[in-house]
């Protein structure tokens, strides 16, 4: 799936401008990363791509394979194949994981998936992710640890088979082993779905090292300010986001 974000300006309901003339093109099959300090608008970008009504698009456009999706609702965008792994997934008491997954899988299908093929697919995905089968009978994300919730996002990803994946700080809350398992699953998914494109929001290069990375962008105050590759990610990890400001301050002091 090709995503073109063109000069996007977005504000909240209380008139706070968060994305400022933001532009980014992700071609079919590409993996892009965005790194940027807290509060710069990364999660906002992720949610706006899925049409979160908490935000208003003031100007600009979002095109999917050449067609604007701004008039599409969140669920329509999801059914087109856009998937967001949330930074903080919610829980719902009394709705089992299994029921939720089956419902979500069926909304994109002409023909409903039968119970047996569903269980087979789910059990395979659970095995791939080193997840306990018993978790599936529990309520959606209820009493799941932070890491288990993140894994559950990747389980949903595998079953829903998206064409554009947004990972919003998947690596926060995952231990090193779980991160490797999740990232490897995504990498394998991309091998099987070479047209699927990815936007990874992260603070750390580790997750990127598992993926077929094309570009790394540094974002600041609602826009992309620098583009590079893995080297940029490593530089940011070493020097932090503030180095521009710090250097400038140093110069001023002299």
């Amino acid at each position, binding site marked *: 799936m090709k995503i073109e974000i063109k000069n996007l300006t977005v504000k909240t309901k209380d008139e706070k401008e968060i994305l400022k003339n933001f532009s980014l093109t992700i071609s079919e099959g590409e993996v892009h990363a965005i790194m940027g300090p807290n509060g710069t608008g990364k999660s906002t970008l992720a949610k706006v791509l899925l049409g979160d009504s908490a935000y208003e698009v003031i100007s600009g456009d979002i095109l999917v394979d050449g067609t604007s999706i701004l008039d599409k*609702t*969140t669920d329509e965008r*999801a059914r087109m194949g856009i*998937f*967001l792994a949330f930074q903080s997934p919610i829980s*719902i008491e009394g709705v089992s994981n299994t029921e939720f997954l089956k419902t979500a899988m069926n909304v994109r299908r002409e023909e409903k998936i039968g119970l047996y093929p569903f269980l087979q697919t789910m059990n395979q995905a659970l095995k791939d992710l080193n997840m306990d089968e018993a978790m599936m009978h529990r*309520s959606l994300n209820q009493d799941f640890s932070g890491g288990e919730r993140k894994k559950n996002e990747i389980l949903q990803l595998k079953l829903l088979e998206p064409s554009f994946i947004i990972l919003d700080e998947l690596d926060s809350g995952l231990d090193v082993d779980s991160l490797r398992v999740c990232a490897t699953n995504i990498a394998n998914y991309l091998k099987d779905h070479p047209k699927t494109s990815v936007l990874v929001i992260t603070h750390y290069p580790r997750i990127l090292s598992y993926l077929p990375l094309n570009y790394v962008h540094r974002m600041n105050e609602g826009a992309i300010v620098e583009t590079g590759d893995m080297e940029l990610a490593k530089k940011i990890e070493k020097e932090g986001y503030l180095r521009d400001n710090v250097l400038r301050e140093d110069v001023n002091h002299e």
Partner: protein
Amino acid sequence: MNKIIITNRGVEQELDSVLFSENKIIFNKDARLSLSLENYEGSLSIEVQEEISAEVVLFLNNSKVDFTYNIKGDLTLSSFGLNYQGKISISLEKEQAKITLYSASINDQDRKVVTKIKHVVPETISELVQHVVSLKGSTTLEVEGIVPKSSSQCVCKQDNKILNFGTSDCTILPKLLIDNYDVEAAHSAYVGKFSEDELFYLQSRGLDEATCYYLLLKSYLFGKMSLTDEEKELFYPHIPMIKEV
């Protein structure tokens, strides 16, 4: 299996371990009871004797009933009401006595429910979760927890919510009368709608608004109850279809 159905036409019952006569139900053995009240007006009292563990699933269909609970053992009560109105008086009368109340109601008329819970002796536990969906009209929940000075080491917890999809005001009036310092008391009250975050999460998985509301309402109303398949079949069809509110 224990089952009682009370309507304005009379009483049907099928009982093997619960005593029932003249508007009084007594648990003197561990048991589970399914109790339905339809188009009924009246009063009912339920007694759980010492060291007995009782479970009651209550269906209140268009009924106006006052309940009195005298609890010396342990009662888990799951109650589902359609336009239910009435007074609920609970009294915990023996050390270690405990009530867990999960109450779900759907109203499309003005309704008021008054719940009073009294911790008569020390070391008693009450946990009340009352969730209402108001589609039309105004719903009022009055909740009162009483722990007298002599009743130390009690737990008295209340969680009340009204989701208001109508245009009238809904009100929760909580009152905790606690005269003892050694008590774990908590009260939360919320009148409003589902959070946008919850809706957004479900919609982001491709579920349309009606399906999202269905799942969220099912969770809100019945999430904590442990119901049999038969009870689910009876209750779930009442989950209202809600679109764009």
